[in-house]
């Protein structure tokens, strides 16, 4: 007489002196000792092996899939699922001798592979073959002829829930033999471990899932019909179990009488599933947090708020309008009532003098490149800046190649040259619109392989790198675009003189290129243009504008000072931060 403690968690045997399971270290304090003589070890092994076989099944399928055999298995499995309960029942029964020829090809391949390989798959398959052989020999045995009903019995389920015909009475005896009182002790212990009570199960009402057919469909039908009882019953099982029951299972069992391990292949479709449960809603913590935040936002949005006050916007546009009217009035008075004098004299910078002297000393019939790289909003300032240089160029009767690197440059070039006196007789080559970035790409390609001459491509790179120009004039309103032109032209043709005619906003950032010698002359803004006009003793164009410019500058400086002192706009958040 030997007592053992059966772990309620892993069903491992422990000595009666143990306080914790040696396998899973679960507490055995509440476990009553069991008589090992009444407990057949093969039963525990049976229980464990069933799980093991289930764990081995994915490996088996994975190995078969790599060999391309999985399709055959899938087809077989699908066919099995679609079979009627009677067919399923037939499949669950041991094979008849005459049915050996009907073994599917995939099973034959498994057997063949199992005979050649000794891996886990082979082991399982060998056991399958051994089980089939053993079952044929054991056909006359009185126990477990109906394997499915036996399996249900092991699980502690009433036969009616399997959806199959009730087990044969000659196999399992009368109804009393199925009662818990007549079950062996080992089966009762397993049921106790698994927490299944056949009496409770038997008293459950027959649900729609017990009627055979697709369990998912039944579940949906049950939901649609609002069958409360069915739903209550459905909640007892998991969705995972539903999927598993729809697959073909392979279960290893142990024949107690023979003492030998027997493996059967059992197709258990959903009809054998005892219980079906609707899919559970799993909500992660992150999702829960997001839902909480969303709820908080919605609640905050719906919360009543005091009406927002206009924050003095009505006065802001009035101030803006008053300042603008004052500015426009002052500019208009300076423009139309001014004397036109006061142009600064002697304020020429070295780069202004260099540009002007280069234009005046330009040889006749020189070849020049004019790059128009400004927007229409700056056309007036560029016109003032470029006028003295362009007049000198026109007088030299140079050959001009015009290139536009902005979309509006095509139109603005015609407008600017059309306003110049004597421009009608100029020899002008229009190179069209040519984005500066594209020019950079072509320049780079030409530099990489100078022998290349692209056909049907812009002529400019070939012109610059070939014969070149006697000079380049870049008319630009932005320093970054002008800088790209300087970089590309300077690298492509270092000897070509580059002059910049740019706006006031571009001038300061381009001065370093003059200091470095990459640019040989520059005029930037109305101030420098006014200086050149004063040098030429012609104040007819810039004179009034210069006066208005000075007036406007003074007015805007005053406005900025007043705004900086009195009207610093501070929003409440900034004030809170400062106070904090």
């Amino acid at each position, binding site marked *: 007489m030997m007592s053992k403690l059966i772990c309620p968690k892993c069903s491992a045997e422990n000595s009666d002196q143990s306080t914790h399971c040696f396998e899973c270290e679960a507490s055995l304090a509440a476990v009553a000792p069991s008589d090992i003589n009444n407990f057949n070890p093969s039963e525990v092994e049976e229980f464990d092996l069933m799980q093991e076989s289930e764990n081995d099944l994915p490996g088996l399928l994975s190995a078969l899939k790599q060999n391309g055999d999985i399709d055959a298995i899938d087809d077989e499995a699908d066919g099995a699922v679609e079979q009627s309960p009677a067919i399923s029942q037939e499949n669950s029964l041991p094979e008849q001798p005459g049915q050996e020829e009907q073994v599917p090809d995939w099973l034959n391949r498994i057997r063949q592979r199992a005979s050649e390989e000794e891996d886990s798959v082979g082991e399982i398959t060998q056991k399958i073959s051994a089980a089939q052989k053993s079952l044929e020999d054991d056909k006359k045995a009185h126990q477990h002829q109906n394997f499915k009903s036996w399996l249900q019995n092991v699980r502690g389920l009433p036969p009616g829930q399997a959806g199959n015909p009730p087990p044969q009475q000659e196999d399992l005896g009368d109804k009393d033999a199925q009662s818990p009182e007549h079950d062996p002790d080992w089966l009762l212990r397993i049921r106790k471990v698994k927490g299944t009570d056949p009496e409770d199960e038997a008293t459950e009402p027959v649900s729609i899932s017990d009627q055979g057919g697709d369990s998912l469909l039944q579940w949906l039908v049950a939901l649609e019909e609002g069958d409360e009882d069915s739903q209550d019953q459905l909640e007892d099982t998991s969705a995972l179990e539903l999927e598993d029951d729809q697959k073909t299972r392979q279960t290893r069992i142990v024949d107690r009488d023979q003492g030998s391990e027997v493996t059967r292949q059992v197709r258990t479709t959903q009809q054998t599933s005892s219980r079906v449960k609707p899919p559970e809603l799993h909500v992660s913590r992150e999702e829960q947090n997001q839902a909480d935040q969303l709820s908080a936002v919605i609640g905050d949005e719906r919360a009543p708020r005091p009406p927002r006050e206009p924050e003095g916007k009505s006065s802001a546009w009035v101030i803006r309008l008053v300042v603008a009217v004052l500015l426009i009035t002052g500019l208009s008075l300076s423009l139309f009532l001014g004397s036109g004098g006061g142009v600064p004299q002697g304020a020429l910078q070295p780069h202004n003098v260099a540009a002007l002297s280069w234009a005046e000393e330009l040889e006749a019939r020189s070849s020049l490149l004019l790059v128009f790289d400004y927007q229409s909003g700056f056309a007036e300032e560029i016109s003032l800046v470029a006028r003295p240089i362009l007049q000198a160029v026109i007088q030299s009767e140079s050959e001009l190649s015009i290139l536009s690197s902005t979309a509006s440059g095509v139109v603005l070039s015609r407008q600017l040259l059309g306003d110049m006196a004597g421009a009608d007789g100029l020899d002008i080559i229009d190179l069209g619109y040519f984005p500066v970035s594209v020019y950079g790409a072509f320049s*780079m390609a030409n530099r990489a392989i100078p022998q290349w001459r692209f056909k049907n491509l812009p002529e400019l790179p070939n012109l610059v790198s070939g014969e070149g120009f006697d000079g380049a004039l870049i008319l630009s309103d932005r320093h970054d675009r002008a800088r790209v032109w300087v970089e590309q032209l300077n690298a492509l043709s270092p000897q070509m003189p580059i002059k910049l005619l740019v706006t006031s906003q571009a001038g300061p950032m381009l001065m370093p290129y003059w200091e470095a010698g990459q640019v040989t002359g520059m005029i930037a803004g109305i101030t420098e243009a006014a200086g050149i006009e004063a040098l030429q003793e012609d104040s007819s164009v810039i004179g009034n504008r210069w006066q208005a410019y000075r007036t406007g500058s003074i007015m805007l400086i005053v406005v900025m000072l007043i705004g900086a002192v009195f009207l610093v706009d501070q929003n409440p958040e900034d004030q809170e931060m400062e106070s904090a």
Partner: protein
Amino acid sequence: MILNDVVWGVVGLLLTIMILSYLIGDNVFFRLAAHLFVGLTAGYMAVLIIRQILVPYLIQPLINGGWVERLWMIGPLALVILLLLSQLPRFTSLGRIPLAYLAGLTAAVVIGGAVFGTLIPQSRAIVEAFDPAVWQADPGQKWFRVLDAVVMLIGTVGVLSYFHFGRKLIPRGGQDAIKKPYPFEVLAGIGQVFIGIALGAVFAGVFSTALLALIDRILFINQIILRLMGAG
């Protein structure tokens, strides 16, 4: 011709006033003028690119060119088609190829131009400013040249130090852990002054250009009014 000028002049006058109406805040006239400007610009750009880029450099070589030229055009044509297909939701990923090509090309051009067209020449200019031969070129401004070179050197080093984002190797803890090494701290302070001056100059330039644009618009309005009154 005169009538044509007057009509377009009036249109320009109205658009100018509509833009200036932003002084009283955002309104429908300003939005109308802005939308008109954006739409016209987009349409003009499309026509310009088709006429001056696609037709002469892509379509004509494909139609009239030899087989070698047509082969050359396969690459650009494929990139154009991929970019167009990327507008369809199903083929959005195809647009990455021409965009990657454009980004790589732009980066190569910009980096190459910046290094060989700006960084190296500018550095050389600073070094050459300390050449005694340059100082002696104009004996009357010798000390001015020296001072100019020194200021230029200090400004360059200071600005570069300002953009040095390192920290001390052995910090003493607290705020000291996020501070630059002491020499960089001093030079960065000097560089900050130079950066402020440069940005101030840029702002003054923008201010000046905007003021000139306003003056130009006032002159334009005056000219149109005089023309409408028959005095122009």
